[in-house]
């Protein structure tokens, strides 16, 4: 209960000194607008734009002011007289894909060596009836893992069982080290739970404030259909109205509505009930020998699973059928999506990730898209071996850098291209780690949630407000490095389709060497804390390549190289 004290204190002080705040607030708005107007001279008013056009990520900046990857322009001007020469296969290791979606059904990979539903492993690859891919988190009886725990929870559970009641004085030196690790994990776990609780409370507070503010504004305007402009142009003459203006202004600018709040609450609830629940263990559904990390053949062929929303969005960004007059266009053409279901609502398991990578490689993937990640990887050597396997077989791996607003040079998001010491001290060569950029060409150019790293994030790609496919023939804007990675996967597939003579290494270099760098673009460095205290850096300082993917430039370079 005490937890709302500081919120109320801030509110009380705010109300007590409202006239000063009002003036300061107006001044700051004017200053911000002036700065943005200076930065954006053309017709696009990014300062007041609340949502970008659908497909902005494929636009060309010179022509539209949107910092997309110029794929639309490339199709019009570089590829218009060419034909793709190869069918490219992109494996989407994710939570499943709606393979019946109107914009995807024609681009789903088909394993031609497998006769559907005959209960036989026709191609003898170890997976029965794997016509469109495989599901490593399903059971032989057709059941599926939907929710799973986070890796932190699994580590905490194992260590807690061992060390919770341990007499530390009797531990060997090696055990003491493990005990110290347990203490660290316990502390991390506790911190996560407290933050979860705080998030829930914050959402509740916002929800209550929204209701209160909406009521005030409805009474003021005499209607429930007031607009953003109405709210912004309001000249409050009392504290109540000022409160309502501030709250609803914030809510409208950030596109917050009751559905979003309900979704957020549900997600936190599910994190508490499943992700952070040490007593929850759905692995029995899969029926594998989980302790045997070298086991390869388990799961089922249901590549949709119970919640294919994330994977469907990812697949659409890469290869949704182009120019069919419905929905949206994927970036790549002549590209098929191989679905490898591996990621539950919770953290994917290292064993499944390793097997998913191997499956993709063995069944002909040219590119593997990995829009997932986690902060702990207890069986990293198994994943490293699979990554090395893909590397040796010339398969390009595209990994989302993660959404923790952290520097991955300091805190990795697994899997990584760097092998652990069990294998060698080297790294995978066919790996791209992708951060997310925004459609606003200003200091907000880096998505505020995106991980970054001058040594570990290879490049940035559009990852905010990306419009793509959703299950049941739906479409939606989504954001995340999960959306940025498939922008790169689609770009790689596009180049591969037209220039099949290039190796995966060359494709990687084409992408990396032809980024747009924006050397003078100062950006807010993503930070989990107070945004007003965030550090600012030049955009090139936040990634290995120093820049933002541009497939038009990469295709131009490919043309010259051949």
């Amino acid at each position, binding site marked *: 209960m005490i937890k709302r004290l500081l919120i109320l204190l801030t509110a009380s002080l705010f109300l007590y000194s409202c006239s000063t705040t009002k003036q300061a607030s107006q001044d700051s708005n004017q200053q911000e607008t002036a700065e943005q107007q200076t930065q954006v001279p053309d017709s696009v008013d990014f300062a007041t734009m609340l949502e970008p056009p659908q497909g902005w990520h494929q636009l060309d900046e010179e022509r539209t002011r949107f910092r997309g990857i110029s794929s639309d322009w490339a199709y019009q001007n570089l590829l218009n007289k060419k034909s793709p020469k190869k069918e490219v296969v992109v494996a989407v290791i994710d939570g499943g894909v709606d393979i019946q979606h109107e914009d995807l059904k024609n681009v789903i990979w088909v394993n031609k060596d497998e006769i559907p539903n005959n209960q036989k492993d026709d191609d003898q690859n170890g997976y029965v009836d794997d016509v469109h891919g495989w599901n490593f988190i399903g059971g032989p009886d057709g059941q599926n893992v939907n929710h799973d725990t986070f890796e932190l929870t699994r580590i905490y559970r194992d260590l807690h069982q061992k060390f919770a009641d341990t007499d530390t004085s009797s531990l060997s030196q090696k055990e003491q080290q493990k005990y110290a690790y347990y203490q660290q994990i316990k502390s991390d776990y506790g911190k996560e739970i*407290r933050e979860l609780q705080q998030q829930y409370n914050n959402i509740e507070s916002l929800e209550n404030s929204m209701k209160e503010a909406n009521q005030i504004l409805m009474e003021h305007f005499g209607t429930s259909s007031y607009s953003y402009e109405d709210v912004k142009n309001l000249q409050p003459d009392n504290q109540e109205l000022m409160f309502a203006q501030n709250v609803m202004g914030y809510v409208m600018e950030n596109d917050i509505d009751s559905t979003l709040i309900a979704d957020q609450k549900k997600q936190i609830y599910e994190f508490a009930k499943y992700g952070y629940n040490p007593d929850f263990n759905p692995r029995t559904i899969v029926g594998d020998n989980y302790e045997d990390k070298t086991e390869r053949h388990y799961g089922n062929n249901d590549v949709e699973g119970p919640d294919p929303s994330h994977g469907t969005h990812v697949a659409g960004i890469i290869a949704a059928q182009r120019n069919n007059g419905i929905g949206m266009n994927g970036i790549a053409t002549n590209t098929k999506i191989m679905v490898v279901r591996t990621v539950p609502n919770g953290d994917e398991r290292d064993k499944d990730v390793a097997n998913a990578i191997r499956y993709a490689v063995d069944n002909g993937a040219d590119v593997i898209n990995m829009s997932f990640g986690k902060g702990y990887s207890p069986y990293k050597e198994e994943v490293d071996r699979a990554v090395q396997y893909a590397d040796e077989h010339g398969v390009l791996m595209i990994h989302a850098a993660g959404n923790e607003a952290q520097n991955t040079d300091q805190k990795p998001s697994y899997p990584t291209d760097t092998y652990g010491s069990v294998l060698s001290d080297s790294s995978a060569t066919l790996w791209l780690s992708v951060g997310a950029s925004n459609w606003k060409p200003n200091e907000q150019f880096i998505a505020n949630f995106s991980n970054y790293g001058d040594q570990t994030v290879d490049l940035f790609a559009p990852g905010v407000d990306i419009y793509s496919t959703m299950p049941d023939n739906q479409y939606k804007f989504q954001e995340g490095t999960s959306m940025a990675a498939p922008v790169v996967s689609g770009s790689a597939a596009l180049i591969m389709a037209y220039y099949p003579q290039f190796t995966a290494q060359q494709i990687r270099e084409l992408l990396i060497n032809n980024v747009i760098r924006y050397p003078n673009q100062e950006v807010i460095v993503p930070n989990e*804390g107070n945004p007003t205290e965030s550090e600012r850096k030049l955009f090139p300082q936040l990634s290995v390549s120093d820049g933002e993917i541009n497939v038009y430039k990469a295709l131009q370079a490919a043309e010259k190289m051949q």
Partner: protein
Amino acid sequence: MMTRASQLLSAILILMMPCLSVAQGSVTPDKEEAISRIFSALPVEASLNEVSKDLNQQFSQNPFGLPTDKNDQMMQIFRKAFNTDSLSESAHHSLEKQYKPAFADSVLEWLDTPTADSVMSQEHEFYTIQGMRKRIISKYEYEQNPPPEDRQEIVRSLINAQNAVNSEVRSQTIIFRALVSAFSVLSDQRSFNESQIDDIVGNFNSRIQGQIEQELSNQLLLMYHDVDTTMLKDYRTFYNSPTGQWLSDARSEAVHTAFQEAADRFLSDVREL
């Protein structure tokens, strides 16, 4: 009748494991031991710890918009003043001052009952990490399917029996006043005289009065989520008894004392910055 050996065993158990339940009719513990047992049985320390951690977490977000170095200093002072050990020590001393042998003995006897055992274990769990996790689950599920009205009524009457609303208002007021005063000292932009602080605290009080009962009710519904209704009714009956009233008042006073002493330490250090 207890044998001498069993009496001795009981005494040893009490001495060695103050949290363990003891059989009815065991030797009457002395004041210090009785207070320690009552203090351990009530989740006072855990609840104080939670307040401390919650406020610390919110300070880390710099809600007053202070310069970073000043906010860091304030957090450091806050952590020192509101650390769990100091809060707990203050509360323990306060409980000792309110010791009344007859009531204390009666409470100790009650603590051995299945009702007390069951309810207290839920109260303790509420403040653990797993308890915090389960709170989110129960809260969300109650939002989807509110608890039955009779359950809500029991909780409301328990809040009345414990005089919990007034106690909570007083706790929050103590801390709130300290925070406003600290802000006034530390902010370069705003400072308040005593009269203005009184106004702000007064506004705060009027704002929270109406909300506290509902919030307490929500909190207790989560806390006692897994306690069956019969036991909860027994628990309420205890708090309606003179012994229950003494325990409730003593606990409230202990918490207020802990907060007031911490607030005084905090403000004193802030003023020395």
